[in-house]
C-alpha cells in the first residue's frame, strides 16, 4: 500500500476540478464526489499506517520516493534540485490517518450543515482542494514542497473563511488570515533559504544527516528561529494569533476541519518533521517552549470571557496549540504529536457540536442559548464528552495527551512551564464547562428552541465522540509499545507514569468544572457582578488585550501613511522633476526668442563677428607669431 502513498493527496486533488467543472450543477453528486475522494484517501492512509507499523518502517528508516520537479544544472551536478516526493514514516502515517479521517467526517457533516446554501458544490470543491494540499503538505519530503502546499493550504483557508463573501466581516477576516499567514511564510521562506545556503538542499533526510554536524551554530540558530516563524503564523501562536478568532466567520465545518484539527496543526507538524533542526539548539528550543506556554495561558484567559460559542472554541484551539508547541519546545516531539492527534478528534467534535447548535438555533451567543441538553440529546451528549476530553478528565483522550506534555515539562526540568500548564488546564476546564452550563443546562432563553440535527450531522459527532474516548489509550503509559514507540525523535522511549502529575492535573480539572458549575450552574454568584467588580481586567481581557487594535492601528497609520507618502513623493517629486525638464526647455525657448531682431545688418554683423572670433581662436598661434 505504501507505494500508492502519492495517491492520497491526488484523489481530493482530482475531485476539485471534477466538482468545479463537471458536477457543479448537481449538488448531491458534487458532495458524493468529494466524500468518495476523501474516503479513498482515508482507506489508503489506514492501509499505509498498518503497513508502516508492521513493516517496521521507523523514524530512522523512512520510505522515500521522489522525482525531479524542477532542476537547474550547475557546473558540478545540480545547482538546484527541487523534487516532488513523498516521505513515509510513522509520523506521516499518523498524520495522514488523522487528516483524512477528520476531513471525511467533516465532509459528511457538511452535507447536512450546508444544505440549501447556493454555493454548496463550490464549498465541497474548496474542501477537496484543502484536503489535497494538506495531505500534500504531510507527505512532502522537502522544505520546498512543504512550503508549496503550506501556501496552498493558506489559500484554501482564505477561500473558505471568505466563503460567505457577501458578509463584509467575512471578507475582511479572510484578508486578515491570508496576510498574517503571509507574514509568517515570509519568515519561514527566509528560514529554509538559510538552510539551503548552509547545506545546499531542501530534502529532509539530507538535512537530517547534515544538520547535526553543522559548524556555524549561530547561523543555524537564526535559520531555526526563522523556520519557527512559519508555525507561529500557521498555528496561530502569539503574536500572529489574531487571524484565528476572526476565521470563525467561515462556515462551522470549515472551522472544525481547518481551524481546529488540520491546518493549524500543520505548524506543529512542521516542528515535528524538522525536529532535528531544533533538537540541537537549546536557545531556540527555549524560545519555542516559552512562546507555546505563553500563548496557551494568553489564549485561555481570553477564552474565559468570550460570549460567542465559536470564539470560545477558537481561543481554546489557540491555547491547545500553545500546549503542543510547548511540548515541542520542552523536547518531547512525541507528546506534541500525541496531543495533536487527540486534540484533532475532540476539538473537531466540539466544533461540529457547536455547528449543530448554531444550525438549529441560528444563534452563536451562548448567553442567548439554554436548555439544549433537553432539546438536542445527541449533540449535547457528544459535546459534553468532547468537553470532558478537552478538560483532561481520565480516561478520556485529552487526559493522556495533556498529561504526557505536563510529564515531559516536569521531567525535563521546566517546572515553571509545568505549573503554567497546570493553570491552563484549570482555565480550560473552567471555560469549557462555563459554556456547557450556560448553553446546555441553563433555562431556555430568548425563546430559542433547539431541535436535533439530521443523521448526517449527528453520526460524525458520535464517531468523533468514540474517537475522543478511544484515541487516548494508544499513547497511555501502560500500553506496551504505544504512540511513543512509533513517533519519536532519537530513540523510542517508554513513558513511565508519574502518578503525582496525573493526580494534580485531574484534580485541577475537576476544580475548574466545579467552579464553573458554582458560578454558572447554580448561579450562586452572578457572573455580571464578578465582571463589574474587576471591570478593568474584564474589559482588557474581553477585548483580547487590544492586540487586534494595535495591528490595525499599525497598518492604518504606519503602512498606509508610508504608502501615501510614497505616492505623494512619486506624483510630486519624481514626476515633477521629469516634467520640469520639459518646462525648462519651453522656458529657455521663450528667452532665446528675443535674439531675432529682424534687422538684416544684425544678422550680417553676427556672421562676421563669428568669423572674426573663429579666426582668432583658430589662427591665434599663427597670428600671434608663435609658429
Amino acid at each position, binding site marked *: 500500500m505504501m507505494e500508492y502513498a502519492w495517491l492520497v493527496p491526488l484523489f481530493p486533488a482530482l475531485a476539485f476540478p471534477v466538482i468545479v467543472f463537471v458536477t457543479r450543477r448537481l449538488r448531491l453528486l458534487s458532495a458524493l464526489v468529494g466524500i468518495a475522494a476523501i474516503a479513498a484517501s482515508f482507506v489508503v492512509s489506514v492501509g499505509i499506517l498498518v503497513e508502516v507499523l508492521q513493516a517496521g518502517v521507523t523514524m530512522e528508516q523512512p520510505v522515500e520516493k521522489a522525482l525531479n520537479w524542477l532542476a537547474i544544472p550547475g557546473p558540478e551536478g545540480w545547482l538546484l534540485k527541487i523534487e516532488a516526493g513523498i516521505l513515509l514514516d510513522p509520523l506521516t502515517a499518523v498524520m495522514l490517518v488523522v487528516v483524512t479521517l477528520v476531513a471525511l467526517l467533516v465532509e459528511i457533516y457538511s452535507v447536512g450543515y450546508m444544505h440549501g446554501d447556493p454555493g454548496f458544490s463550490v464549498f465541497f470543491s474548496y474542501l477537496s482542494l484543502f484536503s489535497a494540499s494538506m495531505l500534500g503538505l504531510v507527505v512532502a519530503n522537502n522544505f520546498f514542497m512543504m512550503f508549496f502546499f503550506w501556501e496552498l493550504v493558506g489559500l484554501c483557508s482564505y477561500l473558505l473563511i471568505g466563503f460567505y463573501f457577501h458578509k463584509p466581516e467575512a471578507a475582511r477576516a479572510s484578508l486578515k488570515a491570508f496576510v498574517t499567514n503571509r507574514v509568517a511564510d515570509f519568515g519561514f521562506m527566509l528560514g529554509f533559504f538559510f538552510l539551503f545556503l548552509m547545506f545546499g538542499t531542501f530534502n529532509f533526510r539530507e538535512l537530517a544527516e547534515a544538520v547535526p554536524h553543522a559548524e556555524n551554530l549561530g547561523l543555524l540558530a537564526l535559520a531555526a528561529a526563522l523556520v519557527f516563524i512559519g508555525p507561529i503564523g500557521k498555528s496561530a501562536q502569539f503574536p500572529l494569533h489574531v487571524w484565528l478568532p476572526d476565521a470563525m466567520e467561515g462556515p462551522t465545518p470549515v472551522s472544525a476541519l481547518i481551524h481546529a484539527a488540520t491546518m493549524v496543526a500543520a505548524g506543529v507538524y512542521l516542528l515535528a518533521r524538522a525536529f532535528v533542526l531544533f533538537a540541537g539548539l537549546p536557545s531556540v528550543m527555549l524560545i519555542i517552549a516559552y512562546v507555546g506556554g505563553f500563548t496557551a495561558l494568553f489564549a485561555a484567559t481570553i477564552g474565559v470571557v468570550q460570549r460567542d460559542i465559536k470564539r470560545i472554541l477558537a481561543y481554546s484551539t489557540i491555547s491547545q496549540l500553545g500546549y503542543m508547541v510547548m511540548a515541542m519546545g520542552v523536547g518531547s516531539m512525541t507528546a506534541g504529536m500525541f496531543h495533536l492527534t487527540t486534540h484533532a478528534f475532540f476539538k473537531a467534535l466540539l466544533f461540529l457540536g457547536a455547528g449543530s447548535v448554531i444550525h438549529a438555533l441560528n444563534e452563536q451567543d451562548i448567553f442567548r442559548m439554554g436548555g439544549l441538553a433537553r432539546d438536542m440529546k445527541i449533540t449535547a451528549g457528544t459535546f459534553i464528552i468532547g468537553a470532558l476530553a478537552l478538560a483532561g478528565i481520565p480516561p478520556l483522550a485529552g487526559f493522556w495527551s495533556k498529561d504526557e506534555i505536563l510529564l515531559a515539562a516536569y521531567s525535563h526540568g521546566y517546572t515553571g512551564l509545568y505549573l503554567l500548564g497546570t493553570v491552563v488546564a484549570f482555565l480550560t476546564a473552567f471555560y469549557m464547562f462555563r459554556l456547557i452550563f450556560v448553553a446546555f443546562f441553563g433555562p431556555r432563553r430568548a425563546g430559542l428552541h433547539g431541535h436535533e440535527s439530521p443523521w448526517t450531522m449527528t453520526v460524525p459527532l458520535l464517531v468523533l465522540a468514540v474517537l475522543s474516548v478511544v484515541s487516548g489509550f494508544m499513547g497511555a503509559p501502560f500500553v506496551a509499545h504505544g504512540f511513543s514507540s512509533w513517533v519519536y525523535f532519537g530513540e523510542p522511549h517508554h513513558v513511565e507514569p508519574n502518578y503525582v502529575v496525573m493526580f494534580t492535573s485531574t484534580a485541577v480539572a475537576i476544580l475548574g468544572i466545579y467552579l464553573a458549575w458554582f458560578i454558572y450552574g447554580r448561579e450562586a454568584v452572578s457572573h455580571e457582578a464578578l465582571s463589574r467588580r474587576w471591570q478593568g481586567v474584564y474589559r482588557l481581557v474581553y477585548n483580547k488585550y487590544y492586540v487586534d487594535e494595535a495591528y490595525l492601528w499599525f497598518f492604518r497609520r504606519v503602512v498606509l501613511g508610508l504608502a501615501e507618502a510614497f505616492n505623494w513623493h512619486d506624483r510630486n517629486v519624481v514626476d515633477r522633476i521629469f516634467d520640469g525638464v520639459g518646462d525648462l526647455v519651453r522656458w529657455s525657448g521663450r528667452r532665446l526668442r528675443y535674439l531675432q531682431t529682424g534687422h538684416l*545688418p544684425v544678422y550680417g*554683423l553676427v556672421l*562676421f563677428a563669428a568669423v572674426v572670433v573663429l579666426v582668432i581662436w583658430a589662427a591665434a598661434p599663427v597670428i600671434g607669431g608663435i609658429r
Partner: protein
Amino acid sequence: MEGGASVAIFWLLAALTVGAAVAVVMLPNIVHSALYLVLTFIGVAGIYILLEAEFLAAVQVLIYAGGVAVLLIFGVMLTRRGHIRQSNPFNSYHVAAGVVSLALFILVVLALGRSPWHAFPGPWPEDTVGAVAEAFLGPYVLPFEVAAVLLLVGIVGAILLAREEKGEK
C-alpha cells in the same frame, strides 16, 4: 613692363580703386556712390591687366562697369524717395560694423604678414584667352552649363519679382 614703371602703376591703380571704394561707402548721396563704384570696377580691371589677365580685364569692364553698375544706377533711380542728398545714410549699427571690419582687416593683414608665400613668377602663357576657352570647354564644361542655367533662372526670377502686379499701383 619694366620693374620701376609697373610698381608705380600698381600703387596708382591701388590708390584709385581703394579711394573709389571708400567713396562708394562714405558718400551720403547714393548716385555719387554708384558712379564711384564704376570707377572702382575700372580700377580693378586695371589691376587685372597688371596681372596679365587681359581677357578678364575686358570682361570686368564689360560686365561689371557696363552692366552691373548701370543696373545699380537703375535701381537707385527706381527707388528714389525723399531728398537725394540724404539717400544713403548709415544705419544704426554702423559703429559695430566698423569695428568688425577693422578687426577683420587686421587679422587678414597679420595672416598675410605671417604666411610664407613662396611665389615664383614662372612663365605666363601668352594667349590667356585660348587657355581660358579650353578650360571652359574642357574640365569646366559642367560648371559652364550650370552657370548658363543660373543666369537664366536669375533673369526669370528678377522679372517675376520686379514686375508690377496688375492693378497694383
